[in-house]
């Protein structure tokens, strides 16, 4: 027994981890294989019977897995773009142009000490980041990323989105209250006041659009904007005031500058997140950036055409049927990568005297992969409508995210009383005006 203990002590930390993980994985894998072999057919039957649920679970898992990735991209974007606006360099070291910075931030956040302050309420303190993050992630379920690519097509999609998004307030208040810190309390209460005030113009500005569209399902709204293929079909041109109000209220909902008083770090240190460190703060951090993405995504879906392209593409098809080549396919796969690598490596080797031959080969290989990947992407874009839709959706969403980041780099922040005044005295009447004018227009124009 002591020999075992001594061996254990001599292991390094990764060694210990591996020693535990590998047998565990082996056991799990064999268990899985056995289950599939024995009960595979029954499992498959059950899954096929409940296909919608399976589809939903799959889509939700993909969303949850992709959420950190998107957050990483947005965090890096923000740091780099604001740095460039500030005439400095920004993240530079951790990857080409610092692009792996977010990964490093994620690892750092995982490795920090995770403590609860002495007089904080432990249950509420622990659950606050969970609530904030999960409400943000849940609200992404109804967004259509591409034709056919949505987790669930509620016919009350818009309502669901605002309902779940409003629950973020609960999480922020929990965090602010449970921290036993006056800065956090001020931050939490400010955020509650802000989000609640801006919910009303947000929802009202969409009601006009819902009246025009006749449905609350987000997928249907996007489909309605894809009529002629031109961007003038987008609801932004049919509801310009609604679009403007929505954009402003969405900035406030996402706690972004100029409405970022809840985390105004020149006044109240970090607002509701002052006492959080480690992964709990990571959750808040992620939730904010996912919120930015989701709010941009919603704006794009509702007003900017979702996954529709701004101009209609001619219908071409690019059929590639590799089966017709026969044995030629094997030869192709063996020869083309080698030739491509050599072709792309040659200019580097010839015209840049300091590259060694193996560095040139690596560069050639990378470039070849990039070119082939690009061609493959083009083929997928032309042949699969969901690829095209996803591309346009992401392009538009990240364009709006860029706009959010731009605003953060440029604008100072408003004060809480100016913020509330603006919401209640300006945005709310404007939204109501929009609503009445739309209703009037519908009544007048649809008169038989």
């Amino acid at each position: 027994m002591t020999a075992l203990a001594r061996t254990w002590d001599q292991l390094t930390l990764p060694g210990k981890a591996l020693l535990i993980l590998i047998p565990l994985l082996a056991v799990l894998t064999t268990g899985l294989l056995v289950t599939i072999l024995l009960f595979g057919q029954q499992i498959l039957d059950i899954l096929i019977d409940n296909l919608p649920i399976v589809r939903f679970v799959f889509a939700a898992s993909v969303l949850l897995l992709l959420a950190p990735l998107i957050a990483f991209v947005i965090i890096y974007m923000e740091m780099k773009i604001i740095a460039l606006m500030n005439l400095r360099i920004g993240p530079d070291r951790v990857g080409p142009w610092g692009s792996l910075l977010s990964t490093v931030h994620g690892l750092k956040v995982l490795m920090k000490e995770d403590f609860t302050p002495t007089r904080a309420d432990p249950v509420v303190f622990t659950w606050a980041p969970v609530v904030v993050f999960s409400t943000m992630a849940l609200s992404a379920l109804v967004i259509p990323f591409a034709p056919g690519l949505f987790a669930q097509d509620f016919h009350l999609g818009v309502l669901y989105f605002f309902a779940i998004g409003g629950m973020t307030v609960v999480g922020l208040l929990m965090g602010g209250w449970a921290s036993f810190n006056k800065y956090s309390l001020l931050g939490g209460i400010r955020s509650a006041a802000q989000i609640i005030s801006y919910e009303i113009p947000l929802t009202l500005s969409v009601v006009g659009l819902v009246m025009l569209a006749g449905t609350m399902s987000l997928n249907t709204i996007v489909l309605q904007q894809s009529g002629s293929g031109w961007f003038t079909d987008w609801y932004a041109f049919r509801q310009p005031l609604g679009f403007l109000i929505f954009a402003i209220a969405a900035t406030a909902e996402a706690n972004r500058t100029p409405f970022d008083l809840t985390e105004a770090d020149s006044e109240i240190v970090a607002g509701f997140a002052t006492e959080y460190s480690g992964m709990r703060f990571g959750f808040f951090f992620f939730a904010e950036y996912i919120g930015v993405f989701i709010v941009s995504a919603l704006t794009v879906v509702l007003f900017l055409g979702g996954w529709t392209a701004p101009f209609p593409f001619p219908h071409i098809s690019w059929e590639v049927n590799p089966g017709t080549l026969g044995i030629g396919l094997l030869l192709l796969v063996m020869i083309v990568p080698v030739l491509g690598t050599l072709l792309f490596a040659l200019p580097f080797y010839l015209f840049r005297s300091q590259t060694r031959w193996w560095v040139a080969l690596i560069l050639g290989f990378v470039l070849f992969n990039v070119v082939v990947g690009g061609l493959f992407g083009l083929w997928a874009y032309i042949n699969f409508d969901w690829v095209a839709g996803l591309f346009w959706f992401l392009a538009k969403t990240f364009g709006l995210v860029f706009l959010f980041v731009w605003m953060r780099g440029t604008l100072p922040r408003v004060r809480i009383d100016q913020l509330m005044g603006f919401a209640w005295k300006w945005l709310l009447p404007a939204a109501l005006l929009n609503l009445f004018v739309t209703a009037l227009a519908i009544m007048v124009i649809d008169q038989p």
Partner: protein
Amino acid sequence: MATVTPPRTGDAPPRTFPKGTHPSEDDPNVLLEDDYAFYEPIPPYPPRTEREAEFYTLGDGEMFLNMGPQHPSTHGVLRVVLKLDGERVVDIDPVLGYLHRGVEKLVENADYHQTISQVDPLEYISSLFCEWAPVEAYERLLDVEVPRRAEYIRVLSGELNRIASHSLFLGWFALDLGGLTPILWSFIERDEIVEMLAALTGQRMLFNYFRIGGVNGDLNHEFMSRLGDWMSRAVVQIEAGEGLLNENEIFTRRASGLGVVDQATALRLCMTGANLRATGIPFDLRRAHPYSIYPELDFDIPTRTEGDSLARYLLRMEEIKQSLRIIDQCLEKMPDGPIMAKLPRLIRPRPGRAWAAVEGPRGIYGAYAISDGTDQPFRLKIHDPSFIHLQAVGALLPGNLLADTMAIMASLDPVMGGVDK
């Protein structure tokens, strides 16, 4: 509360209170529950003065918030205890001394020459003015006349330092209002100026350049070339920074009407400098009590009447432009000659007293020097404008929101090195 007469020596209260013995336990207004007293920023001893008692008594619905020495935006190590009613500030109590270095005592044990490097870090952003006032006081003690070229160089470097200080003010002010970009642009501006001054004085920040009777080194080629380069694009850079903020609706709505001071209040609070000129009183020592070669230079004193933070900000931006005018004239009119007056190695003035004041970027920067005939100053008292303006914050803040605390403090432009001496 009865007036507490301060005792003869410093107060010496006990450092900790055993549970149940804190004096505010009986007072229903001060605390919620006895356990939480530990976390409130209330001093653990009975109030020493009337004002302390008045401040540390909570009214209905009020709470204390401690903006401690570590905070992202107090301008240095400053502790401010705020009494808040929700988001509205009712009263403040700044606690100083975190950066107190005892310069006035150190100076009494040093030579007259050594005092120059001792007083540099007082208002470290505008070090040359910190040196200028004591040096002028010593020159009056010694009845020394400074050569004209040295005076021109002093004015030239001083005005450059003023521009650097004001552009940093712009950055801080915007940062405290939430804008992330102007401060970095201000640092670019300031970087060029301090590199210039490093070429002239040898140091980027605590210059140690002025000497009793003149300056330390003459203008050199690198300084003049950097200065020429910078002057050709200075206005454009400043206007880029201004352009980001002046027309910005959010910025102007935040800053206008904030921390309004009227003329009588400003005079009674002993405010000087841009803060006083923003209320309408055109008091600038360079014109009101001319020193050095300012009578020969042609520049205006910008004045505004509103007295709010926006006025102070716009005023300092105009002062930058006036400083550029002064620099132009200095360069044109620079005479030849020595840069140091003939003085003995060991400075030993006659017993006497002298006061000198210069117009620093923040206000009147004064030095009162007493000599007892030896080679060490007997007393050097520095009057620092940031000290006074921080006191004025306490008069301006009540009634405003928490977010304005930092904005008002930033608009009055205090530097904690000067406040704490």
